[in-house]
């Protein structure tokens, strides 16, 4: 099963469950507060997913390491390498 199929499968499952409960005859037996929560549930889910995505990307962005030390070390090593290669007769 491709990843696309997996997504469609899960979405279809959730969608059917929601539709049966919120729109179908089964839902009328539920207490009113439940019905009220159930109706906008897909919208809640979408907003929650969006928030989670933004928060995750934001957090990872903020904690993305800046490798200053690595860049500096590389510059030193480049000098060292140039000197050594020059001594070994490399013409740049």
């Amino acid at each position, binding site marked *: 099963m*491709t*990843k*696309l199929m997996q*997504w469609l499968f899960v979405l279809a499952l959730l969608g059917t469950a929601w539709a049966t409960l919120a729109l179908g005859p089964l839902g009328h037996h539920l207490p009113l507060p439940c019905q009220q929560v159930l109706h906008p549930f897909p919208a809640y889910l979408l907003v929650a997913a969006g928030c989670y*995505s933004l928060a*995750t*990307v934001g957090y*990872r*962005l903020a904690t*993305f*390491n*800046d*490798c*200053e030390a*690595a*860049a500096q070390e*590389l*510059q030193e*090593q*480049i000098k060292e*390498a*140039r000197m*050594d*290669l020059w001594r*070994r*007769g*490399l*013409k*740049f």
Partner: protein
Amino acid sequence: MAAGRARGEKYSVLLPTYNERENLPLIVWLLVRSFRESGSHFEIIIIDDGSPDGTQEVAEQLEKIYGSDKILLRPRAKKLGLGTAYIHGMQHATGNFIIIMDADLSHHPKFIPEFIRKQKEGNFDIVSGTRYKGNGGVYGWDLKRKIISRGANFITQVLLRPGASDLTGSFRLYRKEVLQKLMEKCVSKGYVFQMEMIVRARQLGYTIGEVPISFVDRVYGESKLGGNEIVSFLKGLLTLFATT
């Protein structure tokens, strides 16, 4: 690592180059030092795609300095792309492990001993460098580039659940036969190619270890990330999403 020698392990580094006259001697020097310090058997295979800047000529000088058993020149007449460069280089590789990396100094050879250690530790088929975990990171990226990178990585993780944190990176160690197998399966180009390698590897049941790396964006020369690349990345991502 005397044990590596005893078991006859050998590491072939594939360096595809195009106009890397400035960087090639430096990366080779760093590679040689890193391997000598860790005591591993190695060879460096330089695949130059007919660079007009004289990369080939510098490579010949390096071959003289370090010996033709350590530096192997396997040039091609013109620019033919990364995927075929790996296939071409692999045909000449005598090691049982292949290391692929960029020749522009953004990947530092000091991480290779860590890759080797990691591989032994978990007997992994692939060890992938990651910018997104632990002490990994980048240097020389502005905020826009970081946002794109993090965003793209997040979307990829959600859609493909690949079980590796850095899919577009190209600093990796492969068992030779694993890389051979993957090269037969992978058809994409550019960033997507690296991504497909990991996704296919998972499909085939290969194990992947990860080592945090610092990515220092090209010291000499231009680094690019244009709109075109973003579009082709998204296309490739969706293709993998729908087909794997």
